[in-house]
């Protein structure tokens, strides 16, 4: 059987696309490059929106990218159940596109932060986190200037009540409400997180180890299951 195909989107200013593609390969999948100006999702099984500074992040992070031609395809596909993971800038784009509730604003400390961050996986109930167990602690790099998750009180309460928090910070680095590092949509197929699992898939390269690999193995398994069941 052929490996699951995970689309990796490149906007002008995307930076972590090469890392995301590598992570997909490491997990045994096939990365499929998707270009922001294209209007074709190339039949991928899932989509990864990597980090970076799309359009320079000048207006607000992700504000301009969400209007890209590719997004016009991706938004309805995600609403229809296509698994989508956005990390960092990808998370910001998903919020700007209203695929995820809330928004990401400047870190409380006002500085960009790059560090190895301890996290707790809160939900193993998404196609991107199935290989983790709820409550599991992992260390994954964060690197962002605008990663403070905010939402109005009602939205935040709903996010908590629906179990939509996927990852929480242990030691809040940026002032995110309720220590939220990542969330999912109600259906669970769309996940956004500030940490960068694609930077934690190999022992050799910097970082804190391979704790991030689970996001990629999870999606490959769930894509395969879908294929088998189809």
């Amino acid at each position: 059987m052929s490996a699951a195909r995970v689309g990796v989107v490149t906007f002008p200013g995307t930076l972590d696309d090469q890392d995301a593609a590598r992570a997909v390969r490491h997990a045994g999948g096939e990365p499929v490059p998707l270009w922001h100006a294209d209007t074709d999702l190339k039949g991928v099984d899932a989509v990864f929106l990597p980090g970076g500074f799309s359009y320079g992040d000048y207006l607000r992070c992700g504000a301009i990218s969400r209007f890209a031609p590719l997004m016009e395809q991706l938004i309805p596909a995600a609403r229809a159940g296509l698994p989508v993971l956005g990390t960092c800038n990808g998370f910001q784009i998903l919020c700007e596109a209203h695929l995820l509730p809330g928004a990401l604003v400047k870190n409380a400390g006002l500085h960009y932060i790059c560090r190895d961050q301890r996290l707790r996986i809160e939900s193993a109930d998404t196609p991107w986190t199935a290989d983790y167990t709820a409550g599991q602690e992992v260390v994954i790099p964060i690197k962002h200037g605008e990663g403070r998750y905010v939402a109005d009180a009602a939205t935040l309460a709903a996010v908590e009540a629906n179990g939509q928090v996927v990852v929480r910070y242990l030691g809040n680095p940026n002032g995110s409400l309720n220590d939220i590092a990542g969330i999912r949509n109600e259906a669970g197929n769309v996940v956004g997180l500030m940490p960068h699992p694609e930077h934690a898939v190999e022992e050799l390269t910097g970082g804190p180890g391979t704790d991030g690999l689970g996001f990629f193995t999870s999606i490959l398994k769930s894509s395969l299951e879908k294929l088998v069941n189809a």
Partner: protein
Amino acid sequence: MSALSVDSVQRAEQTPDERLPYAELGMKDDEYQRVKEILGRRPTGSELAIYSVMWSEHCSYKSSKVHLRQFAAKAPKSDALLVGMGENAGVVDIGDGWAATFKIESHNHPSYVEPHQGAATGVGGIVRDIMAMGARPVAVMDSLRFGAADAPDTRRVLPGVVEGISSYGNCLGLPNIGGEVAFDPCYIGNPLVNALCVGLLRKDQIKLATAPGPGNKVVLFGALTGPDGIGGASVLASATFEEESQAKRPSVQVGDPFMEKLLIECCLELFAADVVVGIQDLGAAGVSCATTELAAKGTGGMDVRLDLVPLRDPSLRPEEILMSESQERMMAVVTPDDIDAFMAICAKWDLPATVIGEVTDTGRLVMTWHGETIVDIPPGTAADEGPVYERPYHEPAGQAALNSDDAARLERPTDLRATLLSLLGSPDLSSKEWVTGQYDRYVRGNTVLAQPADAGVLRVSEVMPGATETNRGIALATDGNGRYAKLDPYAGAQLALSEAYRNVAVTGARPLAVTDCLNFGSPEDPEVMWQFAEAVRGLADACKILGVPVTGGNVSFYNQTGSVAIHPTPVIGVLGVLDDVRGRVPSGFTGEGARVVLLGETGEEFGGSAWAHVEHGHLGGLPPAAVLEAERALATVLVEAAAQGMLTGSHDLSDGGLAIALAESCLAHGVGCTVTLPGGDPFTDLFSESAARALVTVRPEAFAVFAALCGRHEVPYAGLGLTGGSSLTVEGVLDVPLDELRTVHEGTLPAIFG
């Protein structure tokens, strides 16, 4: 004259006596006379614009050239050198068909005026130099020096500089893999911001700044040209036209890292499509520099229609366009057959690109402005035949007194524990996490070592799609020590090189090549010129002994306030290669039960030391001896031991000596140690700054083989003890829990900068 008419060549011939404001543009009388001789007439305003920027100190190296020649003259034989000095950046062969290009450059003065933008555009500029070689930029480093940490102006300059480097570098997607932060009152008013970029390319893909082939098109692409950094040019525009300068012309440039990121990806796609004959980045002298240099190195001529340059501000005069330092621009030479493909790739990346001229074989650079010829010069006279000065120099009046004020006279401490903590928490030696935490060190996923390692290490594979797989890695370190260089610039430059070389070697990488950024005061001051001459001589001599050639660099003069110059500060970058990057040695103690071994010989050397500086505010005597043969032997041992997998960790000894090296090694991974000093005077053992030393941890079972290796290369070694526990214990001398070390080490910069 109407606002739209210009000072044409024809007009220059008709008005031979018109006085141009060359002095206001920094040109000397005799230099102006030479321009007239070259042209056989007075220059036009546009020609004067070109000559004045191209012959400036910054572009022509007129004061430093006679000294810098030693780098080539004394260069050691190196098979690795593919492109040497004189190009945008040097290129070295790192094996398996791969090459690395790297260079360090200063952006000191702009960073004082506007710290954020000054530092940001410094990063932008050096990254374009690397792109111009045909490489993919893969990492940056930054070497920073500020006034005293608690000085009010440092609180303005440092956070701005760090934010500028962080916002620009992070946005480009280039990991920051190392650098330095140092403080000294001598840098107040003259902070040093030196940025390094390294790029990778296939050996057969090197691009050069050249414009061969008459009929080939000259394309300007990237950002629009605006009135950036042309404070001087407006003098010219208004003086020539006897009208008030209409607009204010800023001397500060603002960078657009997003544009630069597009430029990087676009250039790589252009290179891959093989549609570029020659390429040049637009740096300090903008279009003037790019056109004259490309033309001079090509078939010799170029026709340019300057009115075709796309502008951000339509009021710009031709002189201003020639001098504009707008960022994020490149110039390429493209064959007529490839021009459509070239333009299509620029369009894909949303980058403006305009054909502004054509290569000729006339030997003349000719520019027109709405049909009138405004420039007609032999390009080489501007690019390569600038003035060369043999500036007078002599030893500074106070040098002998400074050198005889030996640190030996200073009172020695009795409480070595307190001394350790005081040094460890001093701004220079404290943790730089406040700075490095603002830099993305992970992006691109090839960072093997970054802060707090001694050198940044990158994996080479996966850089270019489809290129041969390799397990190679590269290592880079930058170092400088203004105090040492002040005491003895010859030795100071050698010590800076030694430290960077050693920092590369401790990771297991074989040092290959050197880049340098020479930060000095005014070359017109003979005492500063002496410092410069000595530093260059020292560096060239040391490169020869260590077998590493200088491949390129940068000179920054006039770092002074009034008549007071900064400490002479050569900052040296060394690039090394790891044949198998998986064998890299991490920094510090990585686990319990390893043998802690001190390599090298410790003498009583406190001149310019961190101890003298921090505890006594003293600078005098002589710096540690530069022991280059010992340095070379040490590196050989480190590289061989790493290749054979004997080492579990390593760290070089530098500022603060063994004491600081032990503390940093403990803190690196939270592993303590219990050691016994070799047996001399404990203060000297712990705090002397003798060169050519390193602290390694050896696998216990490999110790005998390691000792034999040291013996073979005549590197003194001393087993000090074992790693383990949660404190730094020096038997009979001091005992500090790691938590306390950490609090002291990490608290300093956050307490000052928030």
